[in-house]
């Protein structure tokens, strides 16, 4: 044994064993570690969840939902019409009688049960979210599902303390809430909407996004499993017309919408003068400001996370990077190098950093805006990056030296595209940062505490992150200024839009 060991050694090059084959560089390989898809059962067809059970749509029509990473059809889902909305609102009205009469401590029990069930079935939800929406399983598993569960736990805690939340206010629910949620965080946005509504005693008709209805339907099943009384939660799937029918229904006391600014404006004008309540969480074009004294390597990570998290399909994404000119060269070099290590591909692979674009329509929109940036003559950087043949994909993209007047600096792209500009002074940074019709979020990177406070005072954004980005906690309110919407979700503030006498 010893002899053969010595012989082997003599045959290898001198020096501590060259572990790399042929003396070449050792490549640390990640194994494609695909999450098994068989843990979640997908039915052939999904009905509407109304009055505590699954019901066929009045229209008898169904639409297909696909996996954007493969373009394969996952299943078909009921297309809810205005008649279905009418049934659902009726069921929610019936449910309201019992639900609003329950003591807060009883409602809390259901919310706690839902939160625990979400945790127990976390893998199923994460997998389904990834299959239906294209986001990396790592994010669905480590962010979407745990944060959604945390939201239910948090609002469960408020349900029996509403009298203390707003001294002097007699907390009474509004009635039936019509909630329309987007496709970027289907389960998490559902949690943001449902948890405070249930905690305050409202009942719900929820309309999930057309391209990502599945986790909402699985959630409906979970709510039934939790014993939630019939009619308290209703889920009506469909397209924009279904959403419009919900908004226009006179039996809906409150509309909560998360989505594009364009649709938000239409909803606001249709509700104007009706006395029905509304909160809107719309688009953004968040500035991400890096000062020269920042922890640059961590700022690079923060900027990458800010724009490439969930393929940039994040309303509060840090899509406009403003770098202090004195460090812009070093910073951009670091950023380019970091981009080259991003792993784009199969969302089910646990090593994937950037997954699939949610839909063909969204891919077209991103492509159009990036082409606009190119045709304006803006310098572009895209790392070498092999994309799968099928499915919807977009290479992570940087635009350098972007002018404030450029389309890519003004319009929300909602994709993995970052516009980079420079600034010279803190005042100029604030001016450029606020020079947008939006105002959802902002990020500041500096080693100076006083400057963080100075900036936060001046930035017109609902959330200002300092030395971090895209951090969410159920206890922290979230919402926008200007065309990013109004009303807050999360925290004690998140209860207000669902209570009477608070507007």
């Amino acid at each position, binding site marked *: 044994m010893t002899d053969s060991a010595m012989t082997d050694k003599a045959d290898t090059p001198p020096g501590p064993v060259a572990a790399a084959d042929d003396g070449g*560089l050792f490549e640390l*390989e990640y194994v494609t570690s695909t999450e098994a898809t068989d843990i979640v059962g997908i039915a052939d067809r999904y009905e509407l969840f109304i009055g505590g059970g699954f019901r066929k749509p009045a229209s008898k029509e169904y639409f297909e939902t696909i996996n954007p990473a493969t373009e394969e059809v996952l299943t078909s889902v009921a297309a809810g019409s205005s008649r279905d909305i009418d049934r659902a609102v009726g069921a929610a009205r019936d449910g309201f009688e019992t639900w609003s009469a329950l003591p807060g401590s009883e409602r809390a029990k259901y919310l706690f049960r839902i939160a625990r069930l979400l945790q127990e079935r976390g893998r199923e939800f994460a997998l389904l979210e990834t299959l239906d929406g294209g986001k990396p399983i790592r994010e669905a598993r480590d962010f979407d599902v745990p944060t959604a569960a945390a939201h239910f736990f948090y609002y469960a805690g408020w349900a029996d303390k509403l009298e203390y939340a707003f001294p002097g206010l007699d907390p009474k629910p509004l009635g039936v809430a019509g909630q329309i949620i987007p496709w970027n965080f289907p389960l998490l946005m559902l949690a943001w909407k449902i948890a405070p509504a249930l905690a305050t005693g409202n009942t719900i008709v929820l309309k999930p996004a057309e391209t990502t209805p599945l986790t909402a339907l699985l959630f409906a099943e979970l709510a039934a499993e939790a014993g939630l009384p019939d009619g308290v939660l209703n889920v009506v799937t469909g397209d924009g017309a279904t959403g419009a029918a919900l908004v226009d229904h006179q039996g809906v006391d409150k509309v909560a919408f998360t989505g594009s600014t364009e649709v938000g404006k239409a909803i606001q004008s249709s509700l104007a003068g009706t006395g029905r309540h509304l909160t809107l969480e719309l688009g953004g074009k968040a500035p991400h400001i890096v000062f020269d004294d*920042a*922890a640059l390597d961590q700022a690079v990570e923060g900027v990458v996370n800010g724009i490439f998290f969930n393929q940039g399909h994040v309303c509060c994404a840090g899509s406009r990077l403003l770098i202090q000119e004195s460090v812009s060269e070093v910073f951009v070099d670091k950023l380019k190098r970091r981009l080259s290590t991003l792993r784009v591909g199969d969302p089910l692979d646990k090593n994937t950093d950037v997954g699939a674009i949610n839909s063909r329509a969204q891919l077209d929109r991103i492509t159009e805006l990036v082409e606009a940036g190119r045709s304006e003559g803006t310098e572009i950087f895209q790392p070498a990056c092999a994309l799968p043949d099928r499915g919807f994909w977009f290479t992570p993209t940087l635009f350098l030296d972007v002018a404030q007047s450029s389309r890519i600096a003004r319009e929300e792209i909602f994709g993995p595209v970052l516009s980079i500009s420079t600034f010279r002074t803190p005042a100029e940074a604030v001016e450029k940062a606020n020079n947008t019709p939006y105002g959802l979020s902002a990020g500041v990177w500096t*080693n100076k505490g006083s400057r963080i406070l100075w900036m936060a005072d001046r930035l017109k954004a609902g959330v200002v992150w300092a*030395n971090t980005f895209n951090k969410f906690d159920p206890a922290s309110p979230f919402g926008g200024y200007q065309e990013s919407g109004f009303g807050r979700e999360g925290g004690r503030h998140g209860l207000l839009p669902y209570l009477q006498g608070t507007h």
Partner: protein
Amino acid sequence: MAMTTSTDTNLPRSSVGSATRHNLLGTGAVTKQSMAAFLGAVPPVDQVGIAERVASLATRSVKREAKAKTLRLAVSMIDLTTLEGMDTPGKVRQLAAKALRPDPSDPTIPLPAALCVYPAMVPTALAALEGSPVKVAAVSTYFPSGQAPLEVKLADVRAAVEMGADEIDMVIDRGAFLSGRYVEVFDQIVAVKEASGHCHLKVILETGELATFDNVRRASMLAMAAGADFIKTSTGKVQPAATREVTLVMFEAIRDFHDLTGAVIGMKPAGGIRTSKDAIRYLVLLSETLGPRWLTPDLFRFGASSLLNDLLMQIGWLRDGRYQSPNYYTND
């Protein structure tokens, strides 16, 4: 005492960019002013950001063949270490035998990079490893505290070099660093580098005593500018020893230093790395931060001893499909 950087061009890797490195702090003697300017340009480190990045890379999946390959690489990167007051020639010979035959049942296992011992044990280690590619590293400069007059520390180094050590693991003067006497720390490293002659120099920062990541990053830059071939986290005598977080901070400093000078500096986390899983996570951090060029024992080492058996056990499991009892692996 010589206060200039060695310009010996025969040094293994330190020759790369050594002239440039010297120029980083001006061409003459290093002054308080030039040092202040140099360290002032080192960017700060955000502790929360470091922890997040480390946590996110911990979920990377290295399995099956890739894992087997990576575990073997990890074996070849180990500096097998014994640093006890109670070290004897017998103990050192035992460890040397382990280095030569990590797993008596599998001759294909690569050999660890080096045996790391106190200077007094260098002759024993050399004799036991004669004819093998396993290097002998001597900890010196009044290891682990470094609290001795410079002359004593240099004599410690020269003795180890004369006895034939291949590598010198020195400790920086943390007392001087923490009291802001950076030029003194720098000059001492330069002097040790000169005393080390042809030996490969690893500079131990003792990150557990530097306490903040900002200090670690500055000390890393200072050590590299002074001539370190490797920077190393810890003596193993202070808690915390190596962590993945502090290792990432040092990787980032190595990357910055490479960008500035072109020099390729190695890294050695030491102390507290015991499992294969942990070792792979270190290598993932290395690969994602510095790239494949650094994935070699020439540029990365683990200062560890109990890690070896865990690596062997995992390699055995991947090979045979079952775990052997720990009693099948030798404790030396």
